[in-house]
């Protein structure tokens, strides 16, 4: 199993406050890794470091053995796609939305992308302003896939969605991973993260406290640092 990302003693301090504290880990190709932890634990920051939206103040991150700062940043972001927490639509129609990153995208390819996110082919003609939250998020997923990334970063992709829409997005993520795509997702909902991911990385106050398969981790201890409660249901501000 090839290593995609290597994190070596990654720390981030902002105004002398440690957001991430000496995180070392490896993310493997073709798997779904969930980064979980309570609000303010640094999980979204860590995710955003993988496409250089954030920069460590010490340590380094490597993609297939190459330090990220050595890669062309636009090329890096085409290889490492990111979908934000809330659907952020940029164009008037779904067709134009899918073409934001790939202006020459053919309609046939666009329809295949819609199929990958479980949307009917005729959605290509739809106006984006009429889409529901769940549909919008799926279009955002398709838009990221259009660029042909090696890995997809998902920052709480279901937290702004209702239960049924969130279930649909989770199923799409599972299908994408089954097709060979590497996914790294951030979640505050442990049950949801455990159901979707192969591996889980737990952060607490910026420190890596546990790492392994979801069924191997003692979440109350890893997340809260004591043997009680859980963070499921908490939300980032």
């Amino acid at each position, binding site marked *: 199993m090839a290593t995609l990302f290597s994190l070596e003693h990654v720390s981030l301090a902002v105004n002398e406050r440690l957001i991430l504290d000496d995180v070392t880990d490896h993310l493997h190709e073709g798997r779904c890794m969930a980064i979980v932890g309570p609000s303010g634990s640094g999980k979204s920051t860590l995710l955003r470091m993988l496409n250089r*939206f954030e920069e460590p103040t010490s340590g380094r991150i490597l993609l297939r053995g190459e330090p990220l700062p050595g890669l062309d940043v636009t090329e890096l972001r085409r290889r490492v796609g990111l979908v934000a927490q809330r659907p952020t639509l940029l164009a008037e129609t779904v067709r134009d939305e899918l073409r934001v990153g790939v202006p020459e995208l053919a309609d046939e390819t666009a329809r295949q992308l819609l199929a990958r996110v479980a949307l009917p082919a005729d959605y290509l003609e739809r106006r984006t302003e009429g889409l529901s939250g769940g549909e919008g998020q799926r279009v955002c997923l398709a838009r990221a896939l259009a*660029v042909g990334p090696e890995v997809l970063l998902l920052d709480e992709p279901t937290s702004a969605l209702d239960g049924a829409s969130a279930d649909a997005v989770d199923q799409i993520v599972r299908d994408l991973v089954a097709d060979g795509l590497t996914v790294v997702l951030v979640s505050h909902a442990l049950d949801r993260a455990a159901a979707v991911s192969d591996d889980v990385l737990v952060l607490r106050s910026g420190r890596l406290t546990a790492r392994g398969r979801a069924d191997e981790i003692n979440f109350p201890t890893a997340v809260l640092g004591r043997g009680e409660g859980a963070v499921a249901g908490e939300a980032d501000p």
Partner: protein
Amino acid sequence: MSPNVPSWTGVVASVALVVLAAGIARRGRLGVERDLLIAAVRAFVQLVAVGAVLSFLFLHAGLLGALAWMAAMVAVGGYEASRRAKGLPGALRSATLGIGIGAVTTLGILVVFRVISTEPRVLVPVGGMVISGCMNIAAIVLRGLRTSAVEQRPQIEARLALGLHAREALAPLVRSTVRMATIPAIDTTKVVGIISLPGAMTGLILAGVDPLTAIRYQIVVMYMLLAAGAVTALVTSRLAEAALFDDAQRLRRMPFA
């Protein structure tokens, strides 16, 4: 002295108009009497001072003096425009260069083609008009970009995340900001002479110049303002957009206005 220009006695008599305005404000309990009087005194002092400086400039300072005066106007204009976009990285530099390049380009073309002369009494007032127009446009561009960069951060990051270059990611916002900044000058040009008699033309007519002659100057001024505004909007937005991102093409964080 031209009979069209008020004497100093006339100027003193016009103080009655300020008294009238202050009286209306006082009677209406508007609470602006003090501001009104301060504004009137400031206008008097500032205009007397600038009149004295310009008189000296026109008589003794020559072309170099005129250029120095215009450089000072550009610096002040750049400072004022940048104040509209507090927290925007490099705003002072973007505004000053935008205004300077806009003014130099258009005035340079007019001088090279001998449309206007290089006499200080021509360069300074015409330069003042163009620099003032450019300052307004630079201010709108900077304020618009700053607001967009804060409010539309998710959209900008969504484009960056798709591998778009910083300039491409900001392009839709730059387009709408530049359009917003240049539309007032275009609208003013459309209705000139119908709704308003603009400054240059009014000044020449008051000085006794035939209106058909005065409009020639005004036409040149309007076209100059259009070009200078376009150049200023382009340069200011290009410099500002570059300053909005760091080396890794990350949108810099700015506080809400």
